[in-house]
């Protein structure tokens, strides 16, 4: 046995020497290294290479970490954070700002001649709070409907027209939903990631998440309930969208990309509510031959939709703030916006690169002449409203409540009204809890109340 141990030790020592000899040489080319925490979307490489070419002083590299914003905050506060990191919603922005991880870049924007009204308005909550700016948006999107032309052609159904209604959509989706002898879905008429219901149904039915100041959750309004009810009807009454179990069945194991995209790409769905960014996956050779069309959402009671996107913020403790600011400048410019539009990583964040002299290139990508629907995504974005957030509640807590409670609606365990009453009650109680803990927010909250905003509580004794 001792020879075995000695042999193993000798082998490992030898391998260590070999590894040491093969270690990559430290490049001392005078470049400043920048680290960007973003998702591992394959298009990220080209975006980084372009920056490195345009700004040769810096060498940007990706630290893939989608959804690891908690870790980023801890790293930033500990002084070992990345120089740049992504932010996916207003909740995260507030966490970054209030933890001191995000740098205020308002002055840097002004110095570089960048203006807020040059970017799509629905992106503002991702990188700005009040009159302060903390980063720059990367891309933007608003939902529309993808459709699989082959499945429509096979069923002899005309493609949806831009002025269609939800009744039209249900009728088409019913014809295109196919089930086997066991009533298992083989093909769905319509698909959607469940968590996206507020962007479509809450918006189109006129509901709101919060009062304008964010002081009270009002998700349980009759409009909100009607929106959720309609989404539930698509699943349980019309049976054209996957139910809870069926969606789980379609979920992929993880990694970049989502279940509905791969299932839609595989021809298991005739239509899907999604974004232009789906093309990042659907252009892949795995989906070669897929003939796609896109049309704006069916008309609902209100002509509204919530838009979104992604932004990149600067670490307040970064040692290379100037380099990080160069990256923000890059994202505001022509090269980045054209690249995003070309890659179909949703749409570029700056409005002007979709119109005027840039319009022809945006609408007709010579490398992808079959993509004749780019105007659809721009139209969707033109009417997109800001996804509502409240500064008075932790977005993660809201997400957890929303996920946990709406599970019961999707599973038909609770009605839409019961579900949203529960969500609203819990979110409002969470607001009160936050105010109890945070005197700065409490003071700001009472200022809003003094200006006529509605409180999160109904009885005075529940006030924080």
């Amino acid at each position, binding site marked *: 046995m001792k020879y075995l141990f000695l042999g193993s030790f000798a082998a490992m020592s030898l391998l260590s020497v070999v590894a040491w000899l093969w270690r990559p040489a430290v490049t001392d080319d005078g470049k400043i290294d920048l680290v960007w925490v973003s998702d591992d979307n394959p298009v990220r490489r080209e975006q980084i290479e372009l920056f490195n070419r345009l700004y040769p002083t810096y060498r940007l590299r990706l630290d893939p970490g989608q959804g690891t914003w*908690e*870790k980023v*905050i*801890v790293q930033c*506060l500990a002084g070992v954070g990345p120089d740049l990191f992504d932010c996916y919603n207003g909740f995260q922005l507030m*966490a970054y700002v*209030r*933890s*001191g991880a995000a740098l205020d870049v308002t002055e840097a924007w002004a110095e570089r001649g960048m203006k807020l009204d040059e970017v799509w308005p629905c992106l503002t909550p991702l990188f700005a709070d009040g009159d302060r700016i903390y980063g720059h948006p990367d891309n933007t999107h608003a939902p529309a409907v993808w459709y699989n032309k082959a499945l429509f052609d096979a069923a002899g159904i005309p493609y949806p027209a831009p002025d269609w209604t939800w009744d039209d959509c249900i009728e088409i989706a019913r014809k295109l939903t196919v089930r086997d002898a*066991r009533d*298992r*879905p083989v093909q769905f008429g319509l698909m959607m990631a469940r968590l996206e219901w507020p962007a479509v149904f809450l918006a189109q039915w006129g509901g709101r998440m919060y009062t304008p100041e964010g002081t009270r959750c009002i998700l349980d309004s009759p409009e909100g309930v009607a929106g959720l009810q309609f989404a539930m009807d698509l699943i349980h009454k019309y049976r054209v969208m996957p139910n*809870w*179990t*069926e969606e*789980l*069945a379609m979920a992929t*194991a*993880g990694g970049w990309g989502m279940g509905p995209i791969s299932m839609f790409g595989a021809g298991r769905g005739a239509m899907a509510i999604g974004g232009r960014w789906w093309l990042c996956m659907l252009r892949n050779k795995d989906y070669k031959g897929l003939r796609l069309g896109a049309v704006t959402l069916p008309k609902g009671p209100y002509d509204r939709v919530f838009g979104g996107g992604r932004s990149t913020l600067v670490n307040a403790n970064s040692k290379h703030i100037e380099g990080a600011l160069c990256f923000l400048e890059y994202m505001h410019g022509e090269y980045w916006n054209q690249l995003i539009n070309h890659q179909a990583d949703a749409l570029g964040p700056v409005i002007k690169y979709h119109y005027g002299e840039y319009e022809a290139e945006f609408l007709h990508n010579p490398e992808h002449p079959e993509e004749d629907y780019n105007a659809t995504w721009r139209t969707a974005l033109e009417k997109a409203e800001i996804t509502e957030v409240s500064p008075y509640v*932790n977005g*993660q*807590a809201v997400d*957890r409540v929303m*996920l*946990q*409670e709406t*599970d*019961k609606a999707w*599973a038909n*365990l609770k009605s839409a009204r019961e579900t949203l009453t529960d969500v609203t009650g819990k979110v409002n109680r969470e607001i009160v809890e936050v105010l109890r*803990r*945070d*005197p*700065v*927010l409490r003071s700001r909250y009472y200022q809003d109340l003094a200006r006529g905003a509605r409180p999160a509580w109904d009885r005075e004794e529940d006030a924080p």
Partner: protein
Amino acid sequence: MNTKRLTTITALCFLMPNFLGFCIFTLGPVLFSLGASFTNWNLMKTVPLLWVWLDNYVKLFQQPEFWLYFVNTGYLMLGMPIAIAGSLLFAVLLSQKLRGVVVYRTLFYLPSFTSGVALLILWKALYNPTYGPINLFLERLSDSLGVAGFQAPEWLASTKNLLSLGYERVELVAGQFGLGARDAIIIMGIWTAVGGGNMLLYLAGISNIPSDLYEAADIDGAGTWTKFRHVTWPQLAPTTFFIVIMSFIGGLQGGFEQARVMTLGGPAGTTTTLSYYIYTKAFEEFQIGYASSIAWVLFLLVFGVTMLNWRFGSRYVNY
């Protein structure tokens, strides 16, 4: 300096690196978390750090969701006796003089040295309610047996469970009887545990039982079951005692990986355990103080259960 003193100093020098590491990386954070549990610390610079003393604990016990997650944690431990019994059965079988026994031992131990996340993703695919092999098999079986109207379980998508526990609060709800996410996790846990470390401990325990006890039993005419009942089982009592204690500790702290990888704590929070609750509160909602209080309640729970085990379980350990 006398020899005794020199020996002591030498021993302390050898112990020091480990002791320092223990203080810095274990004891320090543990005491720090105890202190944090009495504060409102939430990582936000705008929130002044205040001592809130027992507020976090009071709030915790008033939260219905805490009790729901506590019950979830306990429910997931229901598979523990089956897992321990399975480990014992496998150990007894693998301690026989069989041809290729080493191969069998390796195969049974395979789940223990396979990547945990890979296993969880594999099981998630197996439990797929529509296309998963388990339900496809059950459906084929029901077809071949002619069972009319058979509905395969929805596994990870279902709030149902074998004790009819509700999904809103700690209560029994008639319509909740069935196989659901919690049961799916238990079944997977049993599969992982039967051939794992417990089986190795039992194998080691069995190999340490003096052969003359079996010889004496043979002379007395004892059969296989009698020998197991009156020789093997009592001789394995210290091993069983150790395994039970470790399983309780592991069970109370468990459920995090499954929730994180397979269910995100759902559906409707039914697979959220105390450890996953600590994670969401600390690292998603940044309520570090509150999360620390949950961690300390969990610690006290583990400590209490372990003490009870020592107090009452050790009665059955005679060797």
